[in-house]
């Protein structure tokens, strides 16, 4: 569908819903143009190309809520969906906190976000295929690599349109290109594997196939011969992917619904010290050309930069309109989760951090769930490289690391200078002391 068709359709549906008795209505329509090619042993394994469209609907009557979605975009279906959603809303309970956000002018110019790069639309399918093949070929040509677990190149062009009965209308268009590859190595049944991937909203920021392949190869080869270590309590150096994954658990614990449902160890902890004073965590969805950049969230609340942890003190939860009202606060524009959340980088190089550890783990990969926001408990399978006297020595696997996020945040002793924006949650290398490692 074209932009003006989307606008016409959603405006008409809002009118239709109001005429059938809806008090408040929100409609969003997302259309995408997606391409993905996966390579296996230098052949195309899968090629998937499609243009999905989906409509999402929220209806409120007397503070009673119902939602719906449809990929069937026929007028007839959508009108029936609205009628039925109105009927269902009447059967929900009255909830005084429910409702659309108050109207607010979006002053930010979406173009300044630079999340749409027309160059991505112009890449020919053959170029994407060759890019992915090249990643895999570099790995297969390495004598130490035994098996390819596949490489890929994908592009996505999306258009999001959001309108509500309070008069909000917002539109943005974005592009993303993704590429990655993975390999296995090792002897007999003692195999090791890893991968590397990149995703960018601007084509000029995409790394080369050589860079991606070599990153993946390096991550695989350094794990060959991995073994267990004995159970002990040690400092752990988290590589940037692992630091970001730990922040992901923090995000669960500061999300509004976890707070009002009391399913977080950070309930009632606003404006108290919850982390080491060197910790500063920020979310800025308005940074240009980043993967989590957006002008407004899923409810049409304008994006803004917020401080989450400032010098170790918890300053903000991540709130949508509903959880904000429940907690007598204001929405932070997080109805769609974090934008570009990051741990502010420090001054130490990753090498300096590693060299400060006498005996400990350099954590490079985890496996499993093992996070409980209610208590902050965390326990996961771990892979990495053992540090002895400030030097990386042998690889370790089939161990677990365990702790409690409350303690871990306070035990962050060093923060690296290697912050890179790779996803919607980002962090540099960090060191955390006193973590339980279980092995033999």
């Amino acid at each position: 569908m074209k932009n003006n068709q989307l606008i016409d359709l959603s405006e008409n549906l809002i009118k239709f819903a109001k005429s059938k008795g809806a008090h408040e209505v929100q409609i969003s329509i997302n259309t995408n143009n997606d391409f993905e090619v996966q390579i296996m042993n230098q052949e195309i394994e899968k090629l998937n190309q499609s243009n999905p469209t989906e409509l999402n609907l929220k209806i409120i009557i007397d503070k009673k809520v119902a939602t719906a979605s449809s990929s069937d975009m026929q007028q007839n279906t959508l009108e029936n969906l609205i009628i039925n959603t109105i009927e269902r809303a009447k059967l929900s309970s009255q909830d005084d906190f429910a409702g659309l956000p108050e109207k607010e002018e979006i002053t930010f110019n979406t173009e300044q976000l630079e999340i749409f790069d027309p160059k991505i639309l112009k890449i020919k399918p053959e170029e994407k295929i060759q890019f992915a093949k090249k990643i895999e070929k570099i790995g297969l040509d390495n004598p130490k690599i035994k098996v390819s677990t596949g490489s890929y190149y994908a592009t996505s062009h999306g258009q999001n349109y959001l309108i509500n009965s309070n008069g909000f209308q917002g539109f943005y268009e974005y592009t993303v290109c993704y590429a990655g590859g993975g390999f296995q190595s090792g002897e007999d049944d003692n195999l090791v594997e890893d991968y590397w991937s990149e995703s960018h909203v601007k084509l000029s920021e995409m790394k080369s196939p050589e860079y991606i392949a070599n990153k993946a190869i390096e991550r695989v080869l350094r794990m060959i011969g991995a073994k267990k270590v004995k159970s002990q309590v040690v400092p752990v150096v988290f590589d940037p992917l692992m630091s970001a994954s730990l922040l992901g658990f923090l995000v669960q614990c500061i999300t509004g619904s976890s707070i009002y449902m009391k399913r977080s160890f950070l309930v009632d902890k606003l404006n108290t010290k919850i982390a080491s004073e060197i910790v500063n965590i920020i979310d800025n969805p308005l940074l240009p050309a980043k993967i989590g950049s957006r002008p407004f969230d899923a409810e049409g609340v304008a994006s803004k930069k917020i401080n989450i942890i400032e010098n170790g003190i918890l300053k903000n939860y991540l709130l949508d309109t509903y959880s904000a009202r429940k907690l007598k606060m204001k929405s932070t524009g997080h109805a769609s989760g974090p934008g570009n959340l990051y741990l502010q980088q420090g001054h130490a190089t990753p090498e300096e951090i590693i060299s400060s550890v006498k005996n400990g783990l350099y954590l490079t990969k985890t496996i499993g769930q093992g996070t409980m926001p209610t208590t902050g408990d965390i326990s996961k399978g771990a892979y990495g490289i053992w540090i002895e006297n400030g030097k990386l020595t042998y690889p370790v696997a089939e161990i677990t690391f365990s702790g409690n996020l409350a303690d871990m945040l306070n035990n962050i002793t060093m923060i690296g200078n290697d912050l890179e924006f790779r996803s919607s949650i980002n962090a540099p290398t960090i060191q955390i002391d006193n973590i339980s490692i279980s092995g033999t």
Partner: protein
Amino acid sequence: MEKTRREFLKTTGLGISLIATSRLWSNNLFAALTLEKGNNMNEEYFGFTKEDLKKLLAFGLSKGADLSELYFEHTIANSVTMSEDIIKSSSQDIALGVGTRVIHGNQTGYAFTNELTFESIKNAMLTAASIAKSKPKIIKANLEQLTTKSKIYDLSTPFAHANLQDKIELIKTAYNTALKYDSRIQKVSVSLLDNLQQITIANSDGLIISDTRPQMRIGISVTAEDKGKRGTSFASEGGRFGMDFKNAKTPQQVAETAASEALILLEAENPPTGEQIVVLSKDQSGVMIHEAVGHPLEADANWKKQSIMWDKMNQMVSKPFVTIYDDATIPYYRGSLAIDDEGTITENVLLIENGKLVGFMNDRLSAKIMNTKPNGHGRRESYKHIPIPRMNNTILAQGEHDPEEIIKSVKKGFYAVSYQGGQVSNTGKFTFSCNLGYLIEDGKLTKPLKNATLIGTNVQILNEISMIGNDIGFFLGTCGKEGQSVPVTCGTPTLKIDKMTVGGAI
């Protein structure tokens, strides 16, 4: 042709407005929809005739591919949630679309469209066909309608057609049971999810087959609080049945399970860590079988030589008293299917028989590559996805030991009860995250334990199994692989593992 296509869509549309309002009308809708299955008088499939489908499939072979396929899907999914004493919201999601797939050698081309018009589907099919580059082929056979086994699903009272009020009553019963279980229960949330999926699959080998699949799940999450300590637990029940629940646990029973576990967690401590004897209780430990054994036996990981099982066919990979199978035909189970998502009739597939590796779970493509027959494990999340080998109900067969006897045989060890889930890598390393366990001391369960991670390598763990119980329990899960989620179960008796690493805070 044009007229009937609209008819179908109108029925669909009408159904949507009726589900919440009238049971009688929705029964009519159901009759209209099931017309697709079995006695399809006019032989219309999502508004298309067989001749239309043959033409569309021919476009898929126009560049010389081996197989072209159409996958039509219409799914209505509903959810209702209750928390903080109120029905917070309900939702209804409609998915309508067709996926077109073309296979050429080992290569797959795929495209899908939400627009059910001949032109749109033709364009999707031509996009999918572009992976092949040789002379056109012709369709081998006429499309012959096949019918499916009927006993897999209970379609007599599907949730998707139930009155919303009735569902709300059911949710409230569960909610109140959990909340009133004990004064320390602080927060309860209950969600009821159901869907009704209708599919028609046609391919250039002459297959045409339809299926109507119900699914429901009730999930209850409970948080207890006492003296500054908090614990959260989750319990669920579900399957391919309707409002009469068949032999499943009632919502009250599920609520009681969740509430009692949340209370026990208040007292739970961190486990002793390191290598030790582990007893896996029957209720949810199937997740270990799923991760450690199931994934490595999916055929795609084997023809790609990514699984450590790829070269072990007909070899002993476990103790001789271990038998593992995947049975998609168990009536009403969450992972059961009459046909897989490529139209292959499902069966009970033996994987490890008395310790020997005897089978992989495959789809059409991996069966072709490995020179064997497809055995009904090609599944996809929706019309948007390429089918890949997946599990259904993966089960370790019962043994001869009384579960009590197994616990009694352990002087000191860890007894695992409930899980958040598990994960495995291709190389066979797996973990599962234990929400609640117990310490075993002198053959008895003593202190409750929390926050434990069990970790191991699949081949080793199979050889560490020393006792198998004569009981059985099932974990209800949603399995994610290559970005696609599908409903599964995994079952196991009580198991004694002689050596396994338990991780936790020291």
